[in-house]
């Protein structure tokens, strides 16, 4: 069991937990992820390691509540525990002093972007970060990102915080005006990464994305996480999770991501109905008392 030591609500749907997982904390590197399972009946889901503390033996995980599994995870409190956390998995990000780099984070993708940004900053890069979300309440870690960036641009789709724009708009402006940009990282929803790739492509700037495909084992044993690059299929869990954005077949990636949409809906509805019943039963119980 992997107990939760700290919990923080970062935004409406985004939660942060600090979990005791000494083996993972001991080896974790920026860019790597873990597979978690909440309880006996839960799915195995990949979460990127947002931060780690080797001395304390803890890792920080950040997740957005979208389906049944993540909503259930959102109900865990300090003192509760994850049934399983396996890792660290995948390759670490290659950190070097590249010169000037642009870090693009969207929504919950800001979390995995943070340790990479910090490591790049420590390696001496001039770091320009662009972080965005649909609207202000979904944005988080502006302060932490500011600490590890030389320049930080905030944007929201509805203008409720920072610029009213999607992240690719400031990205485009930077690429046009600043030829010194050597590399771009983008982590966020699939569609955001797809458009980031399309934005940097004409400038021929190496662009890395961290892919969040559906996974099961996370150890290279099932192939469920496969993605198609120019050179053929790869397993995201062991060959990635970082890939050259310009090689990714985005259409296929997005289609594979939505393959279980009907089942996800079924699972969530069943769970919510069940919770409603529980709440009602609890109310009846307490009112009788």
């Amino acid at each position, binding site marked *: 069991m992997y107990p939760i030591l700290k919990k923080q609500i970062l935004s409406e749907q985004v939660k942060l937990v600090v979990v005791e997982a000494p083996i993972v904390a001991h080896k974790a590197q920026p860019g790597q992820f873990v597979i978690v399972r909440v309880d006996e009946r839960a*799915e*195995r889901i990949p979460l990127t390691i947002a931060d780690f503390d080797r001395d304390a033996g803890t890792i920080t995980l950040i997740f957005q509540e979208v389906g049944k599994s993540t909503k259930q995870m959102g109900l865990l409190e300090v003192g509760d525990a994850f049934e399983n956390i396996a890792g660290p998995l995948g390759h670490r990000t290659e950190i070097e002093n590249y010169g000037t780099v642009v870090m693009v984070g969207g929504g919950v993708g800001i979390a995995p972007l943070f340790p990479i940004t910090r490591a790049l900053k420590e390696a001496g890069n001039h770091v320009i970060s662009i972080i965005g979300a649909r609207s202000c309440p979904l944005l988080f870690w502006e302060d932490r990102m500011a600490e590890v960036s030389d320049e930080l641009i905030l944007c929201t789709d509805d203008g409720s915080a920072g610029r009213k724009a999607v992240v690719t708009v400031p990205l485009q402006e930077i690429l046009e005006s600043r030829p010194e940009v050597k590399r771009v990282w983008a982590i966020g929803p699939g569609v955001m990464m797809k458009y980031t790739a399309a934005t940097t492509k004409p400038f021929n700037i190496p662009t890395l994305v961290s892919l969040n495909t559906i996974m*099961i084992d996370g*150890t290279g044993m*099932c192939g*469920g996480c496969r993605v198609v690059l120019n050179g053929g299929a790869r397993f995201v869990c062991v060959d990635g999770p970082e890939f050259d954005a310009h090689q990714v077949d985005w259409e296929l990636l997005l*289609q594979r991501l939505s393959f279980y949409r009907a089942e996800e809906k*079924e699972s969530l509805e069943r769970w919510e109905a069940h919770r409603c019943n529980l709440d009602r039963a609890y109310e009846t119980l307490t009112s009788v008392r």
Partner: protein
Amino acid sequence: MPPRRIVPKRIPMAEQAPEVRIHNYDEVPLGFTAEQAIAEAARCLQDARPSCMAGCPVNINIPGFLHLVEIGDFRGAINLIKETNALPAITGRVCPQESQCEGLCVLCKKYEPVSIGQLERFAADWEAEQGELPVPDLPPATGKKVAVVGSGPAGLTAAADLARLGHAVTIFEALHEAGGVLIYGIPEFRLPKAIVKREVEYVCSLGVQIQKDFLVGSSATVDELLEEYDAVFLGTGAGLPWFLGIPGENLGGVYSANEYLTRANLMKAYRFPEYDTPIARGRRVITIGAGNTAMDSARTALRIGAEDSIVVYRRSRAEMPARAEEIHHAEQEGVQFHLLTTPLAFYGENGRLTELECLQNELGEPDSSGRRRPIPIPGSNFRIPCDVAIVAVGQSPSPIIAKTTADLATAKSGVVVVDKETMKTSKKGVFAAGDVITGGATVILAMGQAKIAAKAIHAYLQSGNW
């Protein structure tokens, strides 16, 4: 001994009826009663020079245990089996007996062979019914530590043997449950998970620790394990699934057998939404391949609700590598076989699989393996509509450990190279056995090799000589 009467036919095994069992996940053969077991064991001719034992990779004293079953000494029978086979409840169910012991039974020439596998299963199940296994007296601790990587049949066997010799053993397992293929691959209806759990618990009762959620090569490297442990045993299996490399293979709905079976078995997707992991509930499911993995996939698909479960295989029935019983059970359950059929391409709409295009073959001259080569008939292309396809054409060892371990020699196929007498790898202190040294093989071979490795590890720990 006086000559014994020949009983030509086996005692029939009671089974769940096909039309019933395709709607549940329970075991298919129900097992012998004590009377049936005694009668079946009495069919053994107790030949002075038994031929069956030569077919057993771990040399079980087969006539010996059959005799003990016959006289009703079930305790004696199981003890005798366990002298050489650590996992009889499992191997009794999953060994390819027809090409091993039963294939060499003297009765085979004219009659049906003795049901050796079912009797092995009977003895093991009888023992389980008697309550918990007593923990054997363990020798004093040697102070030596061994890391066993992987908790499949190879890892469990090596761990148990080493613990019984007084060594401190920790098993490192990547998944959240121990058992390897026995837990994630082979379905409940063929090998109940309670049996695997019982074996794992027994190994733990010997003092073996299991560290789950630990991927060696990533959570720690083999070299890092060697800093803390005196020896490392690799029982990591052949977990890397092969794909066909044909167009459309990455469409949604095309699974590797590993993924399909892992979802169904390890994650219990057959009980979705009660369990969270989904699986595509295809109406027409095609499985490509004809080994045990393929039969398991095709039969699982029926239980998940497929109306049609179709096996596509490029050779003929005679070459199908699965256990005879699995093919028989699949046929009984209504699995359809498209033989001499080669898959060419998958087609889909909106990213979801809709059809498989195939080519018909005819049988040509024998190839290097002695099997008649399938030769495509030009222009014989046809398409089979389907919404799920399962690719079950084989697997090889995952490269993770080889990539992260200096001086660990592997062959081109990815298998770890060992000395077959000792299971020593090219790297000092590291041993390996099971599918990781052979590629996909069998439970009994993995177990037999692990026993050899455990002996060699013991010798190495005592002498320090490599």
